[in-house]
């Protein structure tokens, strides 16, 4: 059940919580799984405000459902045109308004560092539902929880993160999150021009993470316990001919998975476009639907732990 340490705290990056707090969130999420359909009144009369300046149906529905299942309510918007961009109001002022109404604020914004600013101006705890290209801590909480559930621990796993590692915030955020754990081996697999940012790699180094960079997914597949797939978009590459040439290497196929360990799992934060074909859904490796489902108990655990 929820514990006191996180009460009133913001959740801006996955490094805002300690390993111990993460593990408590995992066990709270296990408890929450039992309430995910039946509901509870743990956050009765509490209100969540969702400020989604960038649309994200999955993340928003997951938060709103989590709040309803905890017995609370929600208000907010998910259409940026209905708010700030029309009136020209600043993000800070919108957050101050939300602060008057809610017991917790969930923010998604393309402006980098917007969640930190929101946390500065709001008294209510602020949860970052994705800002800029580095942080998406609730996705990472879900991802780490999925790995923890699958293998009993995140310690000691070997993982490959595949795709556009430069622009994908769930990938950067997962890299940061993995540094909480011991003996993790990480392979960053991407086309050269979409490699992880220096800021992220330096952080891995500072935290003594064992990692390497490669363009060859086939080389790492036989070794890994987790294959974390992200979307590779044509628009992100300067050369479309290059995209056509390399995309096959970053789109997972069941043939590719033939060499994988029996217990290897494929993860993806969804929605997917072409990077995982339906055929992979029928392999024993597919775990992205479970990962998506885990988002609900994980967010219930977080909300019940931080909302006062």
């Amino acid at each position, binding site marked *: 059940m929820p514990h006191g340490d996180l009460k009133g705290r913001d959740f801006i990056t996955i490094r805002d919580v300690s390993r111990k707090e993460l593990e408590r969130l995992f066990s709270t999420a296990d408890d929450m799984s039992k309430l995910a359909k039946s509901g509870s009144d743990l956050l009765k009369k509490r209100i969540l405000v969702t400020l989604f300046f960038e649309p994200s149906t999955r993340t928003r529905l997951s938060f709103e459902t989590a709040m309803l299942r905890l017995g609370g309510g929600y208000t907010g918007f998910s259409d940026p045109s209905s708010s700030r961009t029309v009136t*020209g109001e*600043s*993000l*800070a002022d919108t957050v101050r308004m939300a602060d008057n109404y809610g017991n917790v604020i969930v923010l998604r914004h*393309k*402006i*980098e*560092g*917007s969640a*930190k*600013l929101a946390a*500065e*101006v709001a008294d209510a705890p602020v949860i970052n539902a994705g800002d*800029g290209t*580095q*942080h998406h801590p609730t996705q990472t909480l879900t991802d780490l929880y999925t790995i923890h559930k699958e293998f009993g621990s995140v310690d000691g796993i070997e993982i490959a993160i595949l795709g556009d590692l430069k622009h994908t915030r769930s990938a950067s955020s997962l890299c940061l999150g993995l540094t909480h754990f011991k003996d993790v081996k990480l392979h960053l697999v991407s086309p050269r021009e979409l490699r992880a*940012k*220096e*800021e992220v790699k330096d952080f891995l180094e500072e935290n003594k993470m064992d990692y390497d960079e490669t363009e060859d997914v086939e080389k790492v597949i036989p070794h890994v316990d987790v294959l974390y797939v992200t979307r590779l978009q044509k628009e992100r590459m300067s050369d479309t001919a290059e995209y056509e040439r390399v995309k096959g290497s970053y789109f997972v196929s069941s043939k590719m998975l033939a060499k994988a360990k029996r217990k290897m799992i494929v993860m993806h934060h969804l929605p997917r476009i072409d990077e995982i074909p339906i055929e992979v859904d029928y392999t024993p490796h597919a775990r992205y639907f479970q990962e998506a489902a885990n988002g609900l108990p994980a967010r219930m655990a977080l909300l019940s732990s931080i909302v006062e």
Partner: protein
Amino acid sequence: MKFQLVVNEEHASDAYGIFQNETDISIQRRKGRVYFTFEKGSPSKEAVSKSIILFPELEMAQVSGNSRKKVPLTLPESLVGLMNCPNPLCVTSQPKEPAVPELRVLRVSPLLLRCEYCGRYVPRESLSPSLMEVTKFIPQSKKIQTKV
């Protein structure tokens, strides 16, 4: 004891811009180097920090008669309101948002700065005198000490 600051010729006018509010400066040019000597007292801490950030060849010294002692280049751990973040998508770059630019000094030489808001490194090539012109309102609580 006088404070002296040395930059390459190519940075002379940028350096002059930074010290325009300081008084009693004498300037000598020698072998492609420009010597700014502060005849009375030291320049502001803010001007010194800006020079360290902008001029990689910068040299600082204390001079007294014929003796000249180099002064190590140091920056505060955190630069609050001293310079802008060059990232246009950073929340501190949005004129309407009350986020004061704040950069963490990870390393002085070679210089490595990281924005406390967007988390990005400041690329060397983005450093320019115009980046040093902070127009944001800085609340009293965030103001930094400007004198040495």
